[in-house]
């Protein structure tokens, strides 16, 4: 199972290129993986045509989620927001170069996608809050 810690993942985890915040940002989305408390935020700058001109991620998490965030953010710069909505789980796994992943770690890998999609589509249903 440790073959999932490929060079690419360890590299992007240890030396991320897009970790940081954009201030100001045109769009900021955040979410977490409640399984482990990992928190991820993605800031986007988007031009009038809807193209992502810059992006950064911040927060904390495991190697998989952090590397995934770095790779996803890298991949979306230059794309149109509408394109982002079409991004799939497979796209992210391709970026990571991983073929199989247990269900828990899949959530780590896909946290960046969840943040992005959650932000673009609005909060999913079922988020009732109690206090």
């Amino acid at each position, binding site marked *: *199972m440790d073959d999932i810690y490929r060079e690419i993942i360890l590299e992007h985890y240890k030396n991320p290129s897009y970790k940081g915040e954009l201030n100001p940002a045109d769009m900021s989305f955040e979410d*977490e993986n*409640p*399984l482990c408390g990992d928190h991820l935020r993605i800031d986007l700058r988007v031009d009038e045509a809807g193209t992502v001109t810059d992006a950064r991620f911040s927060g904390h998490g495991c190697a998989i989620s952090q590397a995934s965030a770095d790779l996803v953010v890298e991949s979306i710069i230059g794309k149109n927001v509408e394109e982002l909505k079409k991004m799939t789980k497979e796209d992210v796994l391709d970026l990571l170069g991983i073929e199989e992943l*247990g*269900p*828990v*770690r899949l959530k780590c890998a896909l946290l960046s996608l969840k943040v992005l999609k959650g932000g673009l589509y609005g909060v*999913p*249903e*079922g*988020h*009732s*809050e*109690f*206090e």
Partner: protein
Amino acid sequence: MTQLNVLEDFPILKQTDKNGNRLCYLDSAATSQKPEPVLRAMDDYYHTINANIHRGIYHIAEEATAAHENVREKVRAFINAGAASEIVFTRNATESINLVAYSWGRQTLQKGDVVLLTEMEHHANLIPWQLLAAEKELRLEFIPVKEDGQLDLEAYAGLLDMRPKLVSISGMSNVLGTIPPTKQMAADAHQAGALFLLDGAQMVPHQKVDIRDIDADFFAFSSHKMLGPTGIGVLYGKQALLEAMPPFFGGGEMIKKVYLRSFIANDVPWKFEAGTPAIAEAIGLGAAIDYLNAIGMDHVSAHEENLTEYAIRSLLTAPGLKILGPLNGKRGSAVSFTVDYAHPHDVAQILDSENICVRAGHHCAMPLHDRFAIPATTRASFYIYNTRDDVDRLLTGLEKVHRLFG
């Protein structure tokens, strides 16, 4: 031939008593026996991948989680629900109905609202509404049961004029064997603006269920009556309803995020599954579904119909015996009766001396017995492992009762 031959898978049924009489188990409406593949599946689970689910990263926890969630999908397919997320695991049918009463009922129902049940409900589909009625000052109304054991559908039409908020009925009476026209009744309920809860405890084991075709809003059943283990049951609810309902039990798994004084609930179905689930039992339920699917639910029904028809025909030849419920037509395989010379307890006890297991009492349906003005009945109920031989033994046993008490 509609007769199944599955005895090999049920070694308990080969047990003999001191007189050499094989165990004749005629109490499957209470709980079914379990075939070997179901027991093996649970044993295998404990021997190979036993681990707590959902949060584990190590491989056996992942496998256990996958196996558990895979059963959700099996249950979905088995009753043809729309999505696996509409399948909530509970302890039994009773808990499933209580969950609806506590979560949906307490949120939705208000003083004066009508909940419409039938006179033949199992206590599991009666007491939860009595408790809620006491709390919320609801009105409980009842579709009458006619002398022949069928629901009075004309009365139903009239009762719907009261605009009940919920119609909650059993899909098959565990005493009478009555099978109401659930699809039509659900449509009528919806027409009148009510939700429709179907108690499927006696349906799912015995007939093919297409819950989307019936269009019930909630559907409850137990594993232990359908060849599966004790300790697990199912609540089906339409996605939108489940999502709108408040959580019921609080604890692990049903949350996304927890602070000291507030929390964010998890998505359905996990929102309703607090704490460590009945994991091995889910695996067993999955194996039971596989087993039933391998036989084919059409064959299960055909086998039972054939046997029930034979049983009723035979019983009616016994002196002083009266069967409650429908004598012909589509009906379930629970056959309750009285004999005019002996009390059901004595009947059951004498039958036991012949290694024949029948149930005697009110079968958790006291009001129904009141309705028929009898304190108790004797019930024989059949499943896939019963044969005409079992019916013949029942008849011989009843002759002995007659000799002693007649």
